[in-house]
């Protein structure tokens, strides 16, 4: 039978000769291998100081976007929740009051918007479903936590910083998901 790959290696089952039986040459060979590894390049990334390069299509933690004036884009249409295969998104809609026009772009907005990060599979379908460009998957990794309830991210956790009040934070958050 023809081998499927070139990596197939025949196992040598001949009885060992004396030189092999005393094992010392094999041990020395193994020790040279480990010694050589001491001088190899280490693939370790010093994480909090240095981060690995993420490709532009990386799908990480979600952010809820704002427009240039700092108004929330989300209109609580629920398309993302419908698209979500893991049913991680829940929301509650509310009607915008006249004095809230500077806060929300549309007349309807999400009063409550929660993503359960333990359910989320980071498929990005919510991002595709959104008609208002309100939800994006950034290039940040969801941080670890001790309690399950802390993984249910509310609107406060998800909203991008206000570009008017906190332009620096906004730019930073934007920069990550370019």
């Amino acid at each position: 039978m023809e081998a499927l790959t070139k990596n197939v290696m025949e196992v040598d089952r001949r009885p060992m000769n004396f030189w092999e039986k005393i094992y010392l040459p094999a041990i020395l060979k193994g020790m040279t291998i480990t010694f050589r590894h001491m001088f190899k390049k280490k693939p370790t990334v010093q994480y909090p100081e240095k981060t690995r390069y993420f490709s532009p299509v990386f799908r990480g933690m979600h952010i809820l976007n704002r427009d240039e004036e700092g108004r929330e884009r989300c209109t609580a249409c629920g398309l993302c929740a419908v698209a979500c295969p893991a049913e991680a998104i829940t929301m509650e809609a509310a009607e915008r009051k006249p004095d809230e026009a500077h806060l929300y772009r549309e007349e309807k907005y999400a009063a409550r918007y929660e993503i359960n990060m333990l359910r989320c599979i980071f498929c990005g379908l919510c991002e595709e479903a959104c008609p208002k460009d309100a939800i994006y998957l950034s290039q940040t990794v969801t941080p670890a936590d001790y309690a399950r309830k802390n993984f249910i991210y509310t609107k406060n956790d998800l909203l991008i910083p206000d570009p008017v009040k906190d332009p620096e934070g906004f730019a930073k958050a934007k920069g990550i998901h370019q």
Partner: protein
Amino acid sequence: MMFLLTIDWAFFLEKLILIAIVITLSLVIAMYATYAERKIAAFMQDRIGPNRAGPFGILQPLADGMKLFFKEEIIPNHSNRFLFIMGPALAMLTAMMTCAVIPWGNKVELFGRSIPLQIADINIGILYIFAVVSLGVYGIMIGGWASNNKFSLLAAMRGASQVISYELAMGISLIALLMLTGSLSLKTIVEQQMQAGHFWNIAYQPLGFLIFFICAMAECNRAPFDLPEAENELNMGYHQEYSSMKLGFYLFAEYINMFISSAVIVTLFFGGYDMPFVNETLLTPNMAALVGVIAFFAKIFIFIFIFMWIRWTLPRFRYDQLMNLGWKGLILLALANMLITAAIILYRM
């Protein structure tokens, strides 16, 4: 209280200071051996190892020690309390006791006194080391039994049988060396190797060295002979029930043992505090002692490195392989080595 006056107080003080220095040194070296172990393991596995506590992680052993001190101390209900505490204490004690007879260097001239850098030059130095090493297994056995845990007990059994088996080959391989030196005093053995025209003992006893080295590894319970610990078979072995600094003592004793056995190997086979290619008699006594101590520690560190290098290269022996190697391999080899050495000595006489 008259008899107190008969003691040479300066001598007493000198020895006391020497003991304090040696013990502190062994503890510090054992501490940093843990750091070296982790670093070497990491580098051999293409990792970086501890590097957060201080520059290059140099404070890591302190952090580890602190952690152990602050851990909750748990003594199992159904264990024997006294023996449970005595186990790690014995392990540490026997580990530290060995350094009494090792010559750390030549004489030092201080305050008009000639101070030998050896705590006790007894004429049966090697046998003393042998005796203390053979006692080292009590720490493991008592701790393992007192834990009242079947894994610990199994580990204690393994440790005891392993140490007894390898002690024999170790002793026989030493006999061949002692026939050459004609002395049991470690100081004399080192001085013989320092003589002009006399090589280190490794040149005369390469096989003896190999057997001694393997047995030393087995006596230290180091991989590939770490069957009493065997993390994946006995979940930590004899120190499974231990926590806090009692666990620390067991782990520490292992590193001290490694340090001391490296020192013994260097003393017996690699010229002790003899700096190669340097004639110590031409230097001033203090200078010669300094050079000697540096050479001695350099050699010890090389051996500690080799111990770790082997640990992170070779897998653990299976139990029957261990016994086969000890009883059918090393003892026979050691006996043959002894007979051949004796024959050669007779022939040359």
